[in-house]
C-alpha cells in the first residue's frame, strides 16, 4: 500500500468545462484524468463511475460514486460524491441489524447524514467497479479484481434497506454504459457461488491476469507485483518438481479434472448468468477431491472456523492442539501437490507448463458443497495411503513449518483451508503462508495479504510478532464475598467503577458540554485538565466518554472514535505517535514514520472522517527538550480537517506556563479545568455512595476517615484504602466487638498503620550500641555546632559514652557496621565512599525525634 501513498498523482480535467455557473464561478466537468507520476499511467474517471477515496486507513479506502466534478473560483478541483460504506465503517452495534454474514466486498449505499459529500479531487485514488445486486441475489464471491464491490442494501444511519428498484436499475444502467463506453478496460472477474471462498481470489487473480495479459492500467502496480510473484512461483514450482513424489491417486484426480473450458474472459454479469450451469458441470470432478482433503484435515470445517476466533483472550488452550494439527497437514499437502505438476512438466518447457497449470487453476476452484461429505467413506483406502504419506513428508518438511505460528495468522489461514476448494496449487500456498509468520497480515481483503512471500530460510528464528497478549485463565472461579465486610471491601476497592460519580457533577458537565459541542460542530479542540492525584480526573473523563458513546449509539450525537494514551505507559514520549496511530488505524510503524502518517492524516482533508477524541493522560511525561510531541499533539486539533478533540490530563495547574514553550501553550488554548481536592463532605459522600446502603461502617467512622484524608491530601484513593484496611482490621477483631461494624477504633488503627512514621519505632527497636551511636551523633553535633560529623568524631563520643555507661567499647569495625546499618535504614544519611573513618554522617530525622525516642526507654 505504501506505493500508493508515496506515488504522487496529477489530476487534470477531461475535455472542456461542461457547463459553468457564472455566479459561483464554478466550472463543471465530465471527467477527470488521473496520472500517476511514478508509473506514468493514466486513468480516466467519468461522472457516474465509482471511485476509491483516500481514508485514514490506507488499506481500506472509501468507496464513492462520482456525481459531480467542478472547479471553483480558486482553481481548486472538487467532486461531489455519493458515499458507500463498507461493513467495517458501520458502527459495531448496528451491524447486528443485518443478521447475516457480510462479505468484505459488500458495500452499502450510505444515506446517513453527516458526511461531507464535497471532497477534494486529489483524494480520489482510482476508479473501481461496483456491481449492484437485487435484494434476492446472493453476494457473489468474486475471485478476481481486488477492486470489485457489490452493493445490495442501503444504510441510512439507523437501519438497512434494500435498494429501491429505481435506484437499482439506474445503477445497473450505469454499469452497462460503463462496459460499453468506458475507456478503461475493466478487470475480468469471475464469480462463484457464495460458499466459495474469497481467499482464493488472489491466486486466481494473479493467474488470470498473467495468462490473459490484459494491459490493465489501473492495476499497473499490482500486476507488476504479480508478475514477480508468478516468476517466484515458477521457481518454487521447479523446486517442487525436483523433490516431487507421484501419487497414483493424485494423478487420477487430475484426469478427472480434464474437461477444460476457458472462462477467463467472463465478465461479472455473464458469470452471474452462467453460474448455475457451471457449477453443475464441474461439481462431480471437484467433489472427490475436496472430500479427500477434508478428511485429511481431520477436523470438520465448522470446528476450525470457531478456532478462527481464538484471538480473544479467552481462547481455549485446546485450540492450539487443533491448530498444530492443521499446521502439520501442510507438509503433506505439498508433497502431494507436486505430483500433478510433476507429470505435467514432463517434456514441456516452463512456460507452457505454467500456462497449463494456470488454466487448471482458474478452472479448478469449483464448487465444493460441504454436503458431499458422504463420499469420504468411499475413499478410505486413498486416505490411508495419504496418511502414510503424511508421516514421511512430515519429516522431510519439518524445517519449513514453524510450530508456534501465531494465533491470528494460523487461524485465518486455517479458515481459508476449512473452506478451501482443493486445487493442488492452493494447498501448497496455504502451507507457505503458514510458514511465514513474519508476514504481518493486514486485515484488509482488498489487497490480498496472501500473496506468496519468500519461503523462509530453514531455521529462521521465530519471532512471535503477532502473539496475543493475555494472562492465563484461572482454574477455579473466584469466590463471591461471603459477608457484609467482604462485600464492602469489594465495593470500596479503587478498581470498582461506581455507577455514578458523586461530587464531580460540575466537572463532568463541563467536560461533557465541551466535547459534545465540538462533536456536533465537527471541529476540534483541546482541553487541559489538572488536579492532584486521586481527585477523579481520569475516571470523570472516562465517564464522559462513556456517556457520549451511549449518546452516539442512540444516534443523538454523531459517532466518534475514542482513543487514549498515557504518558506513564510509554517508554519514550515519541512512542505516543506509535500508539495513537496503532489505535487509530491498527498500523504498526516506527515513531518517526508514525509522526509523518499522523501529520498527513490530520492535515489532509479527510472525507467521511469521524471525530476523534483523544485522551492524553499524564501529559507532563510527554515533555521533550524540543517539545515536538506536545507541539504536534496540540497543533493537529487546530487544523480545519483534523476533527480532533484532545483532553489532556496532568497534575499541576500551571503546567502549560511552567514547562511548555509559548507556541505549545498557545496551541493548548485556554480551555482549562482544575479538579480541586475532595473536601471531607465529598469524601464522605463517595464512601457512602460506594457502600450503597450496605451497613458495614458506623457513621462516625466514615466521617473520621473523610476528615483525616481531606486534611492530608484529599486523595480519594487514600480514603478508600483506609476504609478497606479498616474492614480487615474489623474482621480480625470482630470476635470482640459486638456490632460487627467498622468502628472509630478500627479506622484509627488503620490510619495509624498507614501514616505513622516508622522512625521512632525503629529507633526504639535498635540495639543498644545503635542507640548509643545516635546519642553520640547528637552529642557531637552539640559540641561542634554543625549538623554534620565524621565517623571518627562520633566514634570518640561513642567511646566516651560507653565509658560512662560502663559498656564494652566496640571496635572501629563494629562502629562502621553500626553506622552502615543505620544508614541502610535511612535513619542516617551516610556519604557513600571509601573514606572509612572520615565518612561524613548526618541525621535524617530531627534531633527531637531521636531524643524523644531514646528518652522513653
Amino acid at each position, binding site marked *: 500500500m505504501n506505493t500508493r501513498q508515496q506515488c504522487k498523482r496529477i489530476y487534470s480535467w477531461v475535455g472542456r468545462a461542461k457547463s459553468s455557473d457564472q455566479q459561483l464561478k464554478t466550472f463543471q466537468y465530465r471527467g477527470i484524468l488521473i496520472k500517476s507520476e511514478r508509473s506514468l499511467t493514466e486513468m480516466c474517471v467519468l461522472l457516474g463511475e465509482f471511485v476509491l477515496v483516500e481514508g485514514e486507513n490506507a488499506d481500506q479506502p472509501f468507496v464513492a460514486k462520482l456525481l459531480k466534478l467542478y472547479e471553483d473560483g480558486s482553481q481548486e478541483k472538487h467532486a461531489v460524491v455519493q458515499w458507500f460504506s463498507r461493513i467495517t465503517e458501520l458502527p459495531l452495534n448496528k451491524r447486528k441489524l443485518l443478521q447475516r454474514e457480510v462479505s468484505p466486498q459488500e458495500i452499502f449505499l450510505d444515506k446517513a447524514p453527516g458526511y461531507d459529500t464535497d471532497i477534494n479531487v486529489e483524494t480520489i485514488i482510482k476508479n473501481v467497479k461496483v456491481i449492484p445486486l437485487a435484494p434476492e441475489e446472493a453476494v457473489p464471491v468474486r475471485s478476481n479484481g481486488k477492486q470489485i464491490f457489490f452493493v445490495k442494501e442501503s444504510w441510512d444511519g439507523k437501519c438497512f434497506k434494500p435498494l429501491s428498484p429505481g435506484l437499482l436499475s439506474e445503477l445497473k444502467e450505469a454499469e452497462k454504459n460503463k462496459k460499453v463506453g468506458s475507456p478503461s478496460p475493466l478487470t475480468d472477474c469471475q464469480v462463484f457461488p457464495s460458499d466459495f471462498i474469497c481467499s482464493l481470489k488472489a491466486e486466481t487473480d494473479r493467474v488470470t491476469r498473467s495468462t490473459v495479459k490484459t494491459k490493465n492500467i489501473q492495476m499497473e502496480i499490482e500486476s507488476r507485483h504479480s508478475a514477480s510473484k508468478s516468476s517466484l512461483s515458477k521457481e518454487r514450482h521447479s523446486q517442487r518438481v525436483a523433490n516431487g513424489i507421484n501419487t497414483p491417486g493424485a494423478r487420477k484426480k487430475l484426469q478427472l479434472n480434464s474437461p477444460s473450458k476457458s472462462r477467463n474472459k467472463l465478465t461479472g454479469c455473464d458469470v452471474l448468468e452462467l453460474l448455475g450451469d457451471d457449477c453443475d458441470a464441474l461439481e462431480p470432478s471437484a467433489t472427490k477431491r475436496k472430500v479427500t482433503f477434508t478428511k485429511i484435515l481431520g477436523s470438520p470445517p465448522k470446528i476450525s472456523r470457531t478456532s478462527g476466533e481464538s484471538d480473544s483472550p479467552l481462547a481455549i488452550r485446546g485450540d492450539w492442539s487443533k491448530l498444530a494439527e492443521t499446521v502439520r497437514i501442510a507438509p503433506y499437502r505439498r508433497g502431494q501437490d507436486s505430483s500433478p505438476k510433476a507429470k505435467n512438466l514432463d517434456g514441456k518447457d516452463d512456460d507452457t507448463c505454467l500456462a497449463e497449470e494456470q488454466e487448471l487453476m482458474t478452472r479448478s476452484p469449483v464448487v465444493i458443497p460441504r454436503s458431499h461429505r458422504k463420499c469420504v467413506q468411499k475413499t478410505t483406502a486413498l486416505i490411508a495411503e495419504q496418511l502414510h504419506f503424511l508421516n514421511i513428508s512430515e519429516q522431510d518438511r519439518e524445517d519449513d513449518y514453524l510450530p508456534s505460528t501465531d494465533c491470528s495468522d494460523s487461524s485465518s489461514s486455517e479458515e481459508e483451508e476449512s473452506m478451501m476448494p482443493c486445487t493442488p496449487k492452493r494447498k501448497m500456498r496455504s502451507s507457505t503462508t503458514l510458514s511465514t509468520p513474519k508476514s504481518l497480515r493486514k486485515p484488509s481483503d482488498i489487497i490480498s495479504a496472501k500473496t506468496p512471500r519468500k519461503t523462509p530460510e530453514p531455521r529462521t528464528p521465530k519471532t512471535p510478532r503477532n502473539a496475543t497478549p493475555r494472562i492465563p485463565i484461572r482454574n477455579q472461579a473466584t469466590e463471591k464475598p461471603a459477608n457484609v465486610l467482604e462485600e464492602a471491601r469489594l465495593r470500596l476497592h479503587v478498581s470498582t467503577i461506581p455507577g455514578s460519580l458523586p461530587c464531580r457533577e460540575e466537572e463532568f458537565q463541563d467536560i461533557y458540554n465541551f466535547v459534545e459541542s465540538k462533536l456536533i460542530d465537527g471541529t476540534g479542540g483541546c482541553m487541559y485538565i489538572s488536579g492532584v492525584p486521586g481527585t477523579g480526573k481520569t475516571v470523570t473523563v472516562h465517564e464522559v466518554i462513556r456517556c457520549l458513546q451511549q449518546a452516539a449509539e442512540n444516534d443523538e450525537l454523531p459517532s466518534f472514535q475514542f482513543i487514549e494514551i498515557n504518558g506513564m505507559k*510509554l517508554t519514550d514520549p515519541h512512542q505516543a505517535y506509535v500508539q495513537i496511530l496503532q489505535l487509530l488505524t491498527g498500523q504498526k510503524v516506527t515513531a518517526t514514520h508514525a509522526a509523518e502518517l499522523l501529520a498527513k492524516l490530520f492535515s489532509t482533508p479527510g472525507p467521511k472522517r469521524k471525530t476523534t477524541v483523544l485522551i492524553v493522560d499524564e501529559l507532563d511525561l510527554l515533555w521533550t527538550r524540543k517539545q515536538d510531541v506536545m507541539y504536534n499533539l496540540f497543533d493537529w486539533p487546530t487544523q480545519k480537517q483534523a476533527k480532533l478533540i484532545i483532553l489532556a490530563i496532568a497534575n499541576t495547574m500551571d503546567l502549560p506556563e511552567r514547562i511548555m514553550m509559548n507556541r505549545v501553550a498557545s496551541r493548548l488554548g485556554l480551555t482549562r479545568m482544575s479538579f480541586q481536592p475532595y473536601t471531607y463532605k465529598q469524601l464522605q459522600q463517595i464512601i457512602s455512595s460506594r457502600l450503597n446502603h450496605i451497613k458495614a461502617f458506623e457513621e462516625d467512622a466514615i466521617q473520621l476517615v473523610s476528615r483525616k484524608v481531606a486534611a492530608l491530601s484529599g486523595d480519594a484513593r487514600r480514603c478508600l484504602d483506609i476504609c478497606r484496611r479498616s474492614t480487615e482490621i474489623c474482621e480480625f477483631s470482630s470476635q470482640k466487638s459486638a456490632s460487627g461494624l467498622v468502628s472509630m477504633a478500627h479506622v484509627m488503627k488503620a490510619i495509624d498503620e498507614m501514616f505513622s512514621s516508622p522512625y521512632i519505632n525503629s529507633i526504639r527497636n535498635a540495639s543498644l550500641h545503635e542507640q548509643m551511636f545516635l546519642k553520640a551523633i547528637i552529642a557531637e553535633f552539640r559540641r561542634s555546632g554543625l549538623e554534620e560529623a565524621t565517623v571518627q568524631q562520633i566514634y570518640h563520643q561513642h567511646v566516651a559514652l560507653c565509658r560512662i555507661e560502663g559498656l564494652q567499647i566496640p571496635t572501629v569495625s563494629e562502629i562502621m557496621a553500626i553506622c552502615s546499618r543505620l544508614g*541502610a535504614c535511612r535513619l542516617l544519611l551516610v556519604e557513600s565512599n571509601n573514606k572509612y573513618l572520615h565518612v561524613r554522617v548526618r541525621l535524617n530525622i530531627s534531633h527531637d525525634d531521636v531524643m524523644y525516642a531514646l528518652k522513653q526507654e
Partner: protein
Amino acid sequence: MENASHRYKEFYVKDFVISALMENCLGFNFSTRNDLHGNKCGGGGVMLWRGNLMEKLNQQEFSFLSYGRELKKPLHLLELLKRTTIHGESNSALIIGPRGSGKTMLLNHVLKELMEVKQVRENLLQVHLNGLLQTNDKIALKEITRQLQMENVVGDKVFGSFAENLAFLLEALKKGDRDSSCPVLFILDEFDLFVHHKNQTLLYNLFDISQSAQTPVTVIGITCRQDILELLEKRVKSRFSHRQIYLMNSFDFKQYLRIFKEQLYLPAEFVYKPFVQKWNKNVQSLSEDRTVQDVLQNHFHCSKDLRSLHMLLMLALSSITVSHPFMTGSDLLEASKLCRMDSKANIVHGLSVLEICLIIAMKHLNDVYEGEPFNFQMVYNEFQKFIQRKAHSMYNFEKPVVMKAFEHLLQLELIKPIEGLPVRAQREYLLMKLLLDNNQIMDALQVYPNCPTDVKQWATSSLSWL
C-alpha cells in the same frame, strides 16, 4: 600419625567456611575410627550433628514464630495474598525493616503456607524481581514477560523492543479481569532500587493495575529503607495502597537467649539419641553460664541482627571436634573475638617496624595539627627526629627505603590521598590522611610482637619530641 595429621587439619581449619567444605571428608575419616569417649556414638556422629547444626544455621530453617514476634504480621500478609488469589482482589503492600529482620523469610514463610491451599496453588502466578538484578525497566519487563511465559517468549528469549514489550504486557494485563484471569503476584525485592528507574514507569504501571479493574495483581515490595514512601513519585504514591508491614527486631535479651538455645538444640529425631540428650543438656547449661551470657549480651548490644548471631554460633561450632565434642564458653568467647576483630588494626599487626614508626609519626602529626592532612616529607622529618634521638637503638633507613614503606602503607589503604587535589604533585608532597584512629594504633601496638620499647615509648608519649 594419621591422628596427628587430622589434628593438624582440625587446627588449621578454624575458619568455618573451609571447615564446612571439608566436613564430609573429615566426617568420613573419623567414622572409621574407634570411639574416644566410650560413647555409643562414633566420631562420624559428632561431625554429623555439627554438620546438621551448621546446615540449620545456614538455611535459617527454624520456625518463624520462634522469634517471639507479633503473630499478626504474617497473618495479615497471608490474608492479603489469600484474598488476591481466592477473591481476585488487587492489592499492594510494602514490607519494611532493617537488614536481617526477616522480611524475605516472612514472605517465604507466608508463600509456603499459601501454597498448601489447593485453590491457591493452581491459580497463582508469581513474578520475582530483584532491584539488584533488574537494574532498569527494560530488563525488568523482559523478566516479567519471561516469568509469566507470555506468547512473545520463545525459549528463554523475549522478543520485541522495550516499547513493544511494555505495550504487550500492559495489553495482556488489561485484558484480564477479576473473575477469569489468574492473579499475578509481583514480588519486588530491594524495592528501593526500582524507585530510581526512569519515571518509575514500572512501579506506576504495576500499582495502576492494582488499582484498576484489570487482571488481579498483588505487588509486594521488600525494602530496608524507612523513607521509601518519600521516594515514590506523587502519582505512584497515590496509587500505592499504603499498606506497610514493618518488621523490627523487637525482642529483648531473654528472647535472644531463647533463640540462641533453639538454634543450638539438636532435633529429637537425630540419629544418635543418647547424644542428643547430652548435647542439649550442654546447651542448656551454656545458656546459664555467666561468661556465655556476657558474650551474648555484648553481641546483643552491638547488633540485634540474627544473622550476626548465626555467624557467632557458626564460628563456635567449627571448633568442635571428636576430641572436643561439646561447646564451651571459651569457644564462644573465642568466636566472639573473631567476630569483633578490628580489620584495620589487624593489618597493623603485619607491618614492619619501620612502617609502624611511620604510622606513629603520622599519629603525632595528627595530634599536633589536629587532623590536618600531611605529606611524606612531614612524616619523614618527624621520623628523622625520632631516629636522631634514638640513634643508638634504631637503624637509620635511607629516604628511598622510607618512601617505599610509605607507599606500602598507601597500598594497604592505611593512608589515603586527599581527593580533589591535583595528582601531578610530587610524590613526597601529596597530601594524605591517616585512616586509623589513635585508639586503634595503641591497641595494635599493645599486641605487636617484639615491638622495640623505644618505639612503644615514642608512641605513648604525648609529646613527640621526647
